[in-house]
């Protein structure tokens, strides 16, 4: 399906406020094979891949959120796909990887440096000040809620690399995301860097997230990332001062 320039509803970074509408209810269609969806508009696949690449290279604390469908070696295809996932990660300087291993509601607390949970994804995004992220391997019904919650409460640019139909609630999405598309995505990242997009962070590769936890608890030596890599963004979503001294009895 092509759509011209008209956007029924722009799906852009929030915070949009509590309970944003489902983009599909606002008339945003799903992309077909060979297409992508960028901020509510159907575009060609290559344009969507490059848009995602630029967001991940230029926004602060970009993070990959692998979900259960890629994280667990539950079939041969997944085991094969893992290598290509890391090929993509290695082209993104300073990228973080924070897993969503399952959909348990995780109460009473989560460790937002080590995990993201679909029932309160905003906690991980707020804590790590993530301004661009990729959901990959998350089942559709949980991705739907998660993407809406992220749009509701954060200024994070969401990218859904979906093995099925794509996600209209993500800011950028490409459907049927198989190994070939992971390879094309890696190539798109290389291409935009070559064309002059300067990555926000220097160097190569992945910052170990949850490093404090990993090194302390597992006994594995993990190097702390340089402070400038940990620098956090101060933007609309996070800039509010904590209000203190609220009067409980005020009307």
């Amino acid at each position, binding site marked *: 399906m092509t759509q011209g320039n008209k956007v029924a509803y722009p799906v852009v970074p929030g915070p949009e406020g509590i309970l944003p509408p489902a983009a599909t209810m606002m008339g945003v269609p799903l992309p077909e094979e060979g297409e992508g969806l960028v901020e509510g508009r159907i575009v060609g696949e290559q344009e969507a891949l490059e848009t995602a690449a630029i967001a991940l290279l230029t926004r602060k604390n970009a993070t990959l959120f692998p979900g259960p469908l890629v994280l*667990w070696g539950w079939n*041969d295809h997944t085991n094969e796909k893992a290598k290509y996932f890391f090929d993509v990660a290695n082209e993104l300087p300073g990228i973080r990887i924070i897993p969503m291993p399952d959909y348990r509601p995780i109460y009473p607390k989560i460790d937002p440096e080590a995990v993201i949970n679909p029932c309160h994804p905003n906690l991980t995004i707020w804590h790590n000040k993530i301004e661009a992220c990729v959901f990959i391997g998350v089942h559709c019904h949980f991705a739907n809620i998660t993407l809406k919650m992220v749009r509701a409460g954060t200024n994070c640019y969401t990218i859904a690399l979906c093995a099925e139909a794509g996600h209209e609630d993500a800011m950028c999405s490409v459907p049927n995301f198989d190994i070939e598309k992971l390879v094309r995505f890696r190539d798109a990242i290389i291409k935009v860097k070559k064309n002059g997009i300067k990555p926000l962070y220097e160097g190569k590769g992945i910052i170990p997230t949850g490093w404090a936890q990993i090194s302390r608890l597992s006994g594995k030596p993990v190097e702390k990332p340089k402070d400038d890599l940990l620098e956090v963004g101060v933007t609309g979503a996070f800039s509010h001062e904590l209000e203190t001294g609220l009067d409980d009895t005020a009307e």
Partner: protein
Amino acid sequence: MSLKTIQAAPGFQDYLPKEYQDLLEDGPFFQQRKVSELGSFKEAIEEHPMCAGCAMTLFIRLVYVGLPSLEHTVICGTAGCGRLAISQGAVPFVYGNYGDTNAVATGLKRGLDIRFKDQPKDVVVMAGDGGLADIGFHAVMHSWFRKEKFTTIMLDNEVYGNTGGQDSGMTQKGMVMKMAPTGKKFEKMDMLGLAKTAGVAYTARISPTNPTRVANTVRKAVLIAREVGPTFIQAYTSCNIEYAIPTPKVMDDAREVEKDRYGYLEYFSDEAKTYWEESEKERKRLRKAEK
């Protein structure tokens, strides 16, 4: 598709949170853990938001030890205190609407049997007395009449704990509670008798006073359900909040109630008895051969 769901894809192991790494390296999967090993391996459930000292949480913890193959189990629960903990367990949990558990479990079990012909999949309903004996009563009874092959575990705290103290059919006659100010009007329902009448293959009544017995009873119920027919465990899991039991006295209460009116009871149908005796013999033979 393979069934190797419980291993990380290459490269991802190091990115898993510590809890998950422990579950993979030293968890309860692919082996039958024992109560005596508690504290020495990573359990399927640890943190939960239930009240401190709640006997139900102890019981649920022991259920996870007793389940014969966690990696092939789906637990079905519903509204009520128990699901607050059960939904945190490292075992798939399906939330049936209040009253629907045994209908949902029926569909699950039948679907899994069609989908996985060569691998037994266990479905276990675990829910409160209100969920099973009151609002889910018809679904429970009909799953038994239909001889559906799954286990139903009633977390019998003799009250609607999660909603603040209404009486259930399983509350004792005369009991006065916060939201039953004039006292429960009729006798505690005889769910064990009803189960027997409906043709349940194995029923047990139990308190959490003897942890090994809890785990063994759960294991027995699940294995019999796999091969013979429906099984039912009715477990006294006191609500220390609604019954105002001081936290350190929760186990004293369990022992007293057990002695008074909740002693250990087991009932086998003839078919279940034959199956269980033979399978125990076989297990003993295998253990001997291993030595």
